[in-house]
């Protein structure tokens, strides 16, 4: 036994290495005893090497080079064979044989597999979470301790492009100068912020002590829809003045705050005959024109609403009854002088009342007195301005 063979046997005895010798025709010429565990059965001399070592198929040329070049080597790493992992290396043995060495790396490879398994699972989870975060309709970004954006989701990137220096805190308008200040200001509240044409609700969450998560939920559409809805709820679609319900709320507020006002009810005389004669389309046109005329006689802070039909109600922001009377008389004349389409001239009857400051006074009672005064004006010949009769508090409260 030569020196090389002694060294080889010493290595093989450690149960880490096994071998198969093959000739140039890929026939097995020898094999170590331990090789059986990798190959399922012990190969015999003369067996086809490809049957036991399909790894050689397709690599025949590389293997044959080993026979002619003493220092050439063909290797395959981490090959699973019969539930073992081996590194295969084909080395020069002599001029007629190549040695296929099996290096058992099972223990090390299984440990590597465990790590790879965890790594792959973590990558899958990370990818899935990334997709979930990117699919959120909110803009989301994370700021680190240095105040720099450490992460931003796809919606954020799409909205702000590549700009990482958006400085959201500047849009809040409270003199905030960094994300710490913004986080403190927001607390656990959602705060609206306008950026360009959009409105967002901003929320902050402190993630441990390292990161701050900010979410911006775009509410532009909701804000616009709310605006349109409140417009529809507040304003009469035909004339553009307040609806009576909204006027009542404002009137209650004036009363509650003790703000002065004089209440006026105006009704167009003989309007039913206009509708009956000319139809509702012209009736609507006249109502719009009538509104235009009366708005011209009101001041900026006066309130006006359409009570219904051809009846309007104002709250003149004054506590001077004489002043109110003068202005309403001027309005009456202006209406009478104005030329309306088709009907030419119209008149209106006007009733006026005021807050008596009696404890039982309500917006409804003031309105009722103005309405009664307006009917008195009608009954006394129309085209008149009528003050509500003075009542004592006792009379009113009884």
């Amino acid at each position: 036994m030569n020196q090389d063979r002694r060294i080889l046997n010493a290595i093989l005895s450690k149960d880490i290495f096994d071998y198969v010798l093959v000739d140039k025709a890929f026939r097995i010429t020898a094999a170590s005893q331990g090789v059986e565990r990798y190959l399922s059965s012990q190969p015999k001399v003369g067996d086809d090497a490809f049957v036991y070592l399909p790894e050689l198929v397709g690599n025949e040329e590389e293997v044959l080079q080993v026979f002619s070049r003493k220092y050439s080597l063909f290797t395959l790493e981490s090959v699973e064979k019969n539930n073992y992992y081996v590194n295969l290396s084909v080395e020069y043995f002599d001029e007629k044989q190549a040695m296929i060495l099996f290096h058992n790396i099972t223990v090390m490879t299984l440990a590597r597999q465990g790590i790879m398994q965890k790594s792959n699972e973590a990558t899958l989870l990370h990818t899935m979470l990334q997709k979930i975060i990117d699919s959120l309709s909110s803009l989301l970004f994370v700021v680190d301790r240095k105040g720099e954006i450490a992460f931003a989701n796809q919606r954020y990137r799409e909205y702000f492009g590549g700009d990482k220096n958006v400085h959201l805190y500047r849009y809040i308008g409270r003199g905030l100068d960094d994300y710490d200040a913004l986080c403190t200001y927001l607390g656990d509240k959602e705060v609206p912020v306008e950026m360009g044409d959009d409105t967002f609700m901003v929320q902050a969450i402190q993630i441990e002590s390292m990161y701050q998560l900010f979410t911006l939920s775009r509410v532009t559409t909701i804000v616009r829809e709310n605006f349109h809805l409140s417009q529809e709820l507040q304003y009469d679609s035909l004339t553009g003045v307040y609806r009576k319900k909204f006027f009542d709320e404002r009137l209650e507020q004036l009363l509650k705050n003790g703000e002065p006002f004089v209440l006026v009810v105006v009704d167009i005389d003989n309007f039913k005959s206009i509708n009956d004669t000319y139809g509702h389309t012209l009736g609507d046109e006249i109502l719009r024109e009538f509104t235009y005329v009366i708005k011209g006689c009101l001041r900026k802070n006066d309130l006006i609403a359409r009570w219904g039909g051809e009846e309007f109600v104002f709250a003149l922001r004054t506590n001077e009854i004489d002043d109110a009377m003068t202005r309403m008389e001027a309005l009456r004349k202006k209406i009478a002088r104005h030329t309306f389409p088709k009907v030419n001239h119209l008149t209106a009857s006007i009733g006026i009342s005021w807050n008596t400051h009696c404890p039982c006074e309500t917006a409804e009672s003031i309105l009722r007195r103005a309405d009664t005064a307006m009917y008195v004006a009608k009954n006394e010949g129309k085209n008149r301005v009528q003050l509500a009769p003075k009542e004592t508090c006792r009379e009113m409260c009884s």
Partner: protein
Amino acid sequence: MIRKKVVMIGDFGVGKTSLIRRYVDNAFDDSYLATIGVKISRKALHLEDMECELLIWDTEGSSPIKGLPYSYFKGASGAIFVCDVTRDETVNHLNEHINTFLMLNNAAKHVLAYNKADLLPFHQQETLRQSLPGNAFLTSAKEDVDVDLLFSILAKEMLL
């Protein structure tokens, strides 16, 4: 006996091992076990009176931290590129994998497996199937959809 080396290539977790298990053993296991290194499975075939054996190399998938295992590609007569239809990034990586493989084996044949079709609603399966190129198959190792077809088409390409 003609023996042909076929390599399974794709990102990790796309179902390369499952396709082989379905094709060779007609079995399926839902649990995921990462392949490390390479494992060779054999499948005997009769093609027009020809006895042949496919030696199917199940290689570990590429991941963001580990690229393709090029050392296993050499000498392959064919390749099956696998992606997961529910993970866009695995589909997007196909071209890169194909180019890498063909640089090493320019005469090799290849087919594509758009795997895990069972996870898509039926109408999406149909839409996707119609949009696939001729050498691509919508497969499901779980439901055994077009797995035999995938391998047999490649075998014919390599042998006939």
